[in-house]
């Protein structure tokens, strides 16, 4: 008799039983999930992937009318289209990751209830497939950006551009982390699910998407801490700064955002791993 068991199933809790090698073994599944998300998005549509572009384009036009035109909120001299599109591309990526990830257990309970595979594959696939969607929207942003650049607007492009990949990873990681925490917490008590639907809306207004941080500083200096505490603020401001040279670039804010992201991500993974073992019994 040998003792080399491959799998031992118990109810013992190990805090960091995160088995990344197992996730790696299921990388083909991860790829399949990403492919599925992309394919099924435009199945039986005529415009297909074009829908990825249409949504931010029209939202931007709407923003230009409502916030730029009617409300007259300053964009710090950046052309409105560029300003709003930059904000939307970032925000949309975060929001999609967050809301889809936070529905992981609920939406996949049928399949989770039947077969075992590392559950982490599902939220990871959401982040990756949304990254592809984000890349398309980012391309749209670049087209608009280059159009304005060519027509003579003087953007102060700077070295902060090098931070863009990191910013995007942080957006995804924040969405993933928060999403996993919410998803885990709603399996048993569903209260948070109500919060997420309108909470995300409110969160957008507490993030410099449709206004620059400088406007907030002038108007509500008392409440500026809300924006500073929001880990997304530094990401969005840095993003806009990198392309236009306008906005707030602050290493301290960005460092805070980075630390925040790491903590939320770790916390999310730990909670997610704890919950995934038994969530079928309580969902």
């Amino acid at each position, binding site marked *: *008799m040998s003792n*080399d*068991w*491959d*799998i*031992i*199933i*118990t*109810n013992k809790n190990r805090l960091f039983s995160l088995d990344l090698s197992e996730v790696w073994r*299921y990388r*083909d*599944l991860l*790829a*399949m*999930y990403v*492919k*599925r998300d992309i*394919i*099924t998005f435009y*199945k*039986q549509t005529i415009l297909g992937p074009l829908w990825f572009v249409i949504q931010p384009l029209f939202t931007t036009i709407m923003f230009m009318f409502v916030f730029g035109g009617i409300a007259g909120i300053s964009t710090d001299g950046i052309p409105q289209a560029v300003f709003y599109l930059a904000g939307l591309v970032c925000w949309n990526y975060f929001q999609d990751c967050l809301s889809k990830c936070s529905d992981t257990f609920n939406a996949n309970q*049928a*399949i*989770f*209830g*039947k*077969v*075992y*595979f590392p559950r982490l594959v599902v939220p990871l696939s959401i982040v990756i497939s949304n990254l592809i969607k984000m890349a398309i929207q980012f391309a749209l942003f670049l087209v608009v950006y280059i159009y304005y650049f060519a027509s003579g607007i003087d953007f102060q492009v700077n070295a902060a551009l090098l931070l863009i990949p990191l910013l995007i990873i942080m957006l995804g990681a924040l969405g993933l982390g928060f999403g996993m925490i919410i998803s885990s917490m709603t399996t*048993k*008590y569903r209260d948070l699910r109500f919060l997420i639907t309108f909470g995300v809306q409110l969160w957008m207004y507490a993030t410099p998407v449709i206004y620059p941080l400088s406007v907030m500083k002038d108007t509500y200096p008392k409440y500026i801490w809300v924006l500073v505490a929001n880990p997304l603020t530094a990401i969005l401001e840095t993003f806009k700064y990198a392309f236009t040279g306008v906005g707030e670039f602050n290493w301290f804010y960005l460092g805070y955002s980075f630390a925040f992201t790491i903590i939320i991500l770790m916390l999310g993974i730990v909670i997610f791993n704890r919950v995934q*073992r*038994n969530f*079928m*019994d*309580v969902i």
Partner: protein
Amino acid sequence: MSNTVIEFNNVGKQYILGSIGTGTLSQDLNRWWANIRGKEDPYLKIGETNDRTQKGDSRFVWALRDISFKVEQGDVVGIVGKNGAGKSTLLKILSRVTSPTTGDIKIKGRIASLLEVGTGFHPEMTGRENIFMNGSIMGMTKAEIKSKFDEIVDFAGVAKYVDTPVKRYSSGMMVRLGFAIAAHLEPEILVVDEVLAVGDAEFQKKAIGKMQDVSKGEGRTVLFVSHNMAAVRSLCTRGVMLKNGMVDFIGNIPDTLEHYLKIDDSAQKEKIIDNVKFTKSTLKISNIEINGTNLSESTIQSNQRELTVKIEGHSKEELNYDVMLILRNKDGMPYATYAKGHYMGDIQHQPAGDFVIERTIQLPEILTRGAVYVDLFLHHPMVEYQLKAPNCCILETMGYQQGFGSAMNQIDNGFMGLNDK
């Protein structure tokens, strides 16, 4: 040489009855508080055996308790038991969908479960895409799936539809495809739950054949849960019977099934008359005896050649009737029918008033050992039924045996044996 591939150690699973709400929150807090002080979970001790027909006092129930057994490599283990005995819970724990409350399971090798085929199919994706998707969910790599793709499509018989979204598939096609994918997995251990319920007879045969190949030819281990006794019988080598969440019997498959069939009947120890489902309004039945007893379970002895039937009652009008008995096996397959009204046109007349109907039926000389289920009817053939009592009693036959012989088993040999002229 024995080689244990799965070992269950005191596996238990506790569930909470009722709905989740603030009550659950306070229990959660209690549990958390006990945990912090390093004490045992206060709710783990409470709980009683899981008999869903009895109203319990506790909100906590053990769906599984103290399950311990071992599975050797190449075994095909049939897990049987009534609804709610814990079969599916056991398989769920084994396939790591949920974790046990107590105990542990140790597994050697890759395990794939087939708890319900076609799960993970995305309706919008084509058959081809779903084969890859489903295969990777089951743990196959892309290269593995590619090399088996044609075989899978061929086995499922859906070649024509492979580039059509599965939402256009018939339910049968979906099941066939799902099973085909799973059957072409190459895990060391395969867990199967009730998949053969769907699919036509031809496909079921194919599926059983495939599973036999898997276990016999390739030496892989299969755990199989089904209520289809014929499938369990033809497929499995060993049996485990669960009852109220505990292991009731472990043994080879004929013994396990016999044990299961004997135990598994709610009609046990009831009176036959309680199982009457219909009587004509003008008729009142006061007593029914079959095999000399009014109880719904009795034994046919080894040397017994007669089966007596007695029905007592009162009729308000004249009765034209015949007594009909249908003997069936556990699965409801008829073995024999006593119905002289049908094959002899033999109708009895009974004036209004009290009556006692008695019959003595000649039994075949060589009966096998097993359980026989009896349907009893009073009827006027082609006109009306006066009494219907389907599945009203179980006769346990001891089987015929003489000299150095031994009684044959009903499960393997059918209802009766044949003899020289």
